[in-house]
């Protein structure tokens, strides 16, 4: 078995991987782009992938050293299911003990040297919004995970866009994302992983606005201004490493919310989204 040693890093956190499947190793490098580096030697990987031949094909076993030094493993019967699990665990480990920055579940995109952040939970339309922003001249920092420092700047974990099944048709109608979609990885539960290049890798970008996406197909497009308290509540909801702060990050979140305008974007289409962006300016 040819084993590749990789490391995935984001804002000082590193996850060490030992991958016994060259195809999956290559896909991980493709998915994580500059966040993923190949290493010559990794004596104690956080996560290992081992592949065993079986009568029906191959079994993929992901072995993980837990943060308290125990070991647990999960078995998968196809390559993409194993890859999907690896992605979940890598992201979890990047966040699990990080207490230097606010780790926000959300997207971020840069224009004219400043970025808008889009804190929101799963299924809120972050990825579709992110893909749309690429076509509007924005450079995407991330569609999923951003770190925010004490100075109000954001850095993005620029992994592949995870497009949900219901959004694939919408994205296919946008010419700027059509080609990357053709080369996307099909996920086992539907949807696609769309790889893209990000030249803002490792750059901390000042945040201009906090925009909370609220997709509602029947809604009139409105950018509803949020009070500081509402903005704090929205950021707290999206704060992934909240337990790593004894004060739950509330003072830092409050400082952030007091520095910049915040809006909740009610939109039901990309045209409506454009109107919301105008209103929020």
């Amino acid at each position, binding site marked *: 078995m040819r084993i590749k040693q990789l490391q995935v890093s984001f804002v000082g956190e590193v996850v060490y991987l030992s991958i016994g499947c060259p195809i999956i190793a290559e896909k991980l490098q493709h998915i994580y782009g500059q966040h993923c580096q190949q290493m010559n030697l990794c004596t104690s990987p956080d996560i290992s992938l081992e592949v065993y031949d079986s009568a029906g094909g191959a079994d993929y076993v992901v072995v993980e050293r837990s943060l308290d030094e125990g070991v647990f493993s999960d078995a998968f019967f196809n390559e993409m299911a194993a890859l999907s699990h690896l992605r979940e665990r890598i992201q979890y480990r990047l966040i699990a003990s990080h207490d230097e920055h606010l780790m926000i579940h959300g997207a971020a995109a840069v224009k004219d040297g400043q970025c808008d952040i889009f804190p929101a939970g799963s299924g809120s339309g972050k990825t579709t919004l992110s893909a749309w922003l690429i076509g509007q001249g924005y450079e995407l920092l991330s569609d999923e995970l951003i770190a925010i420092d004490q100075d109000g700047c954001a850095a993005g974990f620029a992994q592949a866009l995870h497009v949900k099944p219901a959004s694939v048709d919408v994205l296919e109608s946008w010419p700027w994302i059509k080609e990357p979609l053709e080369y996307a990885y099909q996920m086992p539960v539907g949807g696609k992983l769309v790889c893209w290049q990000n030249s803002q890798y490792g750059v901390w970008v000042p945040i201009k606005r906090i925009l909370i996406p609220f997709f509602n197909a029947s809604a009139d497009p409105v950018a509803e201004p949020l*009070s500081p*308290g*509402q903005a704090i509540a929205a950021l707290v909801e999206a704060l992934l490493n909240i*337990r790593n702060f004894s004060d739950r990050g*509330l003072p830092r979140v*409050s400082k952030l919310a007091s520095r910049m305008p915040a809006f909740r974007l009610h939109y039901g289409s990309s045209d409506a989204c454009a109107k919301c962006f105008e209103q929020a300016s």
Partner: protein
Amino acid sequence: MNDQCLKPASHVLTQEAGSELVLFNTKTDSSLYLNETAALIWQNLDGIRTVADVIATIQANYPNESVADDILDVMRSLQSSGFVEPSK
């Protein structure tokens, strides 16, 4: 409920934002946004005054409308979600 005295639960953190408040329940990892009026209710829940006392205090700020039911709803909601607890 009117005779109860409610106080902020010990596992709740608060963050002020002007006249608004954001509460965070460290037991359930849930947060709650309180607008100006709800924040006023929260600030009156000191574990000494009864619910009826608090309603009377806040009602005095709104002489032209009855807000008692709304205040009770807020207090019930705060209690059911573990942000406040009876003091005795």
